[in-house]
């Protein structure tokens, strides 16, 4: 080959390599940035007076004196708005039945939206569900609701050959010339005074339990559940995996039985996680009944079986990469095989084993399928260590799925979902980071 051609080939290869790395980094950014932005919004947002009321009522957080001053102020502005409602109700009593009947559904809708925005209207029965006891706790959501109050969404069905177009009409048109007409501009101008938004750091999102199925409150139960499940899985899988790896590398003969075991292990590594989930349900819960119902224990055992092959492989690789001379020196000095393994080979292989372990830990934390049937629930208490053998638990991965698909108010609580995703990703990233650091430290120690 010509030298020139070689150079061109070389350079083009380098260019392709660099481009692909840059593309990968960009793709990662495209994924991570929205998650990060959305997740931060769960912690840092413009919280309204309703958020502060809720925090004080439910968690006892905040300064009651300051809060009552603010409540008095917002109530002053709100009572103006409620006056419009009362005036219109009186006006309706004076109308003939038909006219009043025409206004009624629209008026009901207005009241509904106001309730959504500011919490229960005066004189109405206190709702029993927490989600209806408070108005909008987040300013950006309050603005969305304000838009609903000011505009009616209509669909233009004039062209029968295609889908209708969305357009907005001012809601005040419906009530033109009545006492209610003044309400809309009033609320638009005074919404800030009625809700007093201020930038809020809500640390409770991480440390509080959820209220009313995640509509308010935080995600502590999920974080803790994820943690229990992952650590539990490690407690089972790590010792077993390391022991199996030692057996494979140091004790196993090269015969048919061993190769069977090896291929079984490789097969296990390729099984889809939902299969492990169903196996866990059939075996741990229905057959050997490790617990009455779903429990952290059953989930941990299932996850342990799922990550076992990865741990065995990582540990095997690590043990095999220990230089032969170490082993020979140890045996040559007269120590037994067992002693050699415990004092020479394992310490030297430890960085690799630990790395494999922690990466599996991250995987166990992020898996959904194995825990659906064995451990995860959508609503449950934060459990203590004493309950892990009997109680199921909420967990981040399952609740992210649940909030995205099954929750009746999925669109209202996207921020919670983002917050959970961010929490899960942070946990996995932290685990992997700690794996890298730990590995570096141990390697340094062993070298020294």
């Amino acid at each position, binding site marked *: 080959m010509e030298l020139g051609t070689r150079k061109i080939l070389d350079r083009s290869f380098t260019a392709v390599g660099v481009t692909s790395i840059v593309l990968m980094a960009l793709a990662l950014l495209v994924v991570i940035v929205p998650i990060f932005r959305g997740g931060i919004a769960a912690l840092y947002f413009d919280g309204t007076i309703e958020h502060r009321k809720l925090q004080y009522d439910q968690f006892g957080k905040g300064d009651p004196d300051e809060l009552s001053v603010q409540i008095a102020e917002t109530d002053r502005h709100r009572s103006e708005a409620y006056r419009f409602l009362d005036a219109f109700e009186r006006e309706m009593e004076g109308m003939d039945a038909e006219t009043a009947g025409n206004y009624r559904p629209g008026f009901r809708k207005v009241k509904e939206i106001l309730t959504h925005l500011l919490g229960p209207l005066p004189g109405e029965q206190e709702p029993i*569900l927490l989600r*209806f006891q408070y108005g909008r706790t987040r300013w950006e959501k309050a603005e969305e609701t304000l838009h609903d109050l000011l505009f009616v969404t209509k669909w233009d069905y004039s062209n029968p050959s295609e*889908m209708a177009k969305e357009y907005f009409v001012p809601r005040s048109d419906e009530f033109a010339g009545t006492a209610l007409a003044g309400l809309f501009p009033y609320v638009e101008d005074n919404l800030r005074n009625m809700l007093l938004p201020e930038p809020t750091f809500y640390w409770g999102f991480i440390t509080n339990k959820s209220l009313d199925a995640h509509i308010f409150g935080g995600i502590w139960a999920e974080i803790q559940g994820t943690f229990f499940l992952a650590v539990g899985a490690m407690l089972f899988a790590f010792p077993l995996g390391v022991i199996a790896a030692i057996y494979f590398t140091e004790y196993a003969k090269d015969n048919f039985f061993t190769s069977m075991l090896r291929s079984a292990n490789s097969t296990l590594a390729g099984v889809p996680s939902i299969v492990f989930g169903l196996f866990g349900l059939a075996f741990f819960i229905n057959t050997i009944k490790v617990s009455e*119902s779903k429990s952290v224990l059953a989930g941990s055992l299932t996850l342990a079986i799922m990550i076992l092959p990865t741990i065995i492989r990582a540990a095997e690789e690590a043990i095999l990469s220990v230089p032969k001379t170490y082993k020979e020196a140890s045996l040559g000095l007269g120590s037994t095989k067992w002693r050699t393994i415990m004092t020479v080979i394992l310490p030297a292989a430890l960085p690799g084993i630990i790395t494999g372990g922690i990466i599996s830990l991250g995987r166990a934390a992020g898996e959904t399928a194995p825990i659906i049937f064995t451990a*995860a629930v959508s609503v449950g*208490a934060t459990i203590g260590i004493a*309950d892990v053998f009997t109680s199921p638990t909420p967990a981040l991965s399952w609740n992210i799925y649940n909030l995205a*698909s099954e929750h009746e108010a999925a669109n209202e609580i996207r921020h919670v979902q983002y917050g959970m995703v961010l929490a899960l990703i942070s946990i996995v990233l932290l685990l992997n980071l700690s794996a890298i650091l730990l590995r570096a430290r141990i390697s340094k120690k062993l070298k020294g």
Partner: protein
Amino acid sequence: MKLMKKLFLFAALLSFAAAGPAQAKDIVMDGSTTVGPVAKSFAAYFTKTTGVQVTVSESGSGNGAKSLINGACDIANMSRAMKDKEVAAAKAKGVDPVQHVVALDGIAVVVHPSNYVSSLKIEQIRDIYIGKVTNWSQVGGPNAKIVVIQRESNSGTQDSFKSLVVGKGNAITKGAETQASNGAVKSRVGSTPAAIGFIGLGFVDDSVKPLVVNGVKPANETVKDGSYPVARPLFMYTNGQPTGNVKKFIELPKTDDGKRMISELGFVNKY
């Protein structure tokens, strides 16, 4: 060696760091996603008023029944009645499923708000679902191919819809897309102009448009008086007659607070 010990110690410490007090016997619920909102609200209310922990899983009516049969839950939430097969399986395992009605629920047939079809006959809906009608123009709508959305076979809502609308003997069109929960159907219909799907009445919001069926609008009143044709009761099943806390829980729909929760969630009270 020292390191190993340290590591194990660290793991042990970590796992005890989050330890909390143990609790009394709690109630475990599993099953329908449609009953989910009621179950979750009841659970929160029950824990608040009695201190008994209640856990709720939403894995579908079929799974709820299986859980109860296997003794893995105290209460199975179901949006359909137990089938004979399930009852037989339960009896074989020594489980005696007892039915309790929680609330009534209409199944709203929903389309995208941009679709100007706003009312259909039940036969037309059936024809759409069995694949006889494939374009909205055939039922007086715009010229667009219908995207049919159904639920998975495990779903009680699917089961009720099949018996109430499609007819037991008819197969749903092969082109139908399957979604795994009420919420998933809602978001799919809300983002697909030519879609048709069905969800529990409690899940309806402004992102979808419920159809008027046989001239009757799906609403609280029409479900209660029986005029809305696609309605069914929602159930909770227990093993034998409930006692103690489970009994208290099951009787919530008959209490004033329970009734208010049910109607606030958009379901219809039976009692």
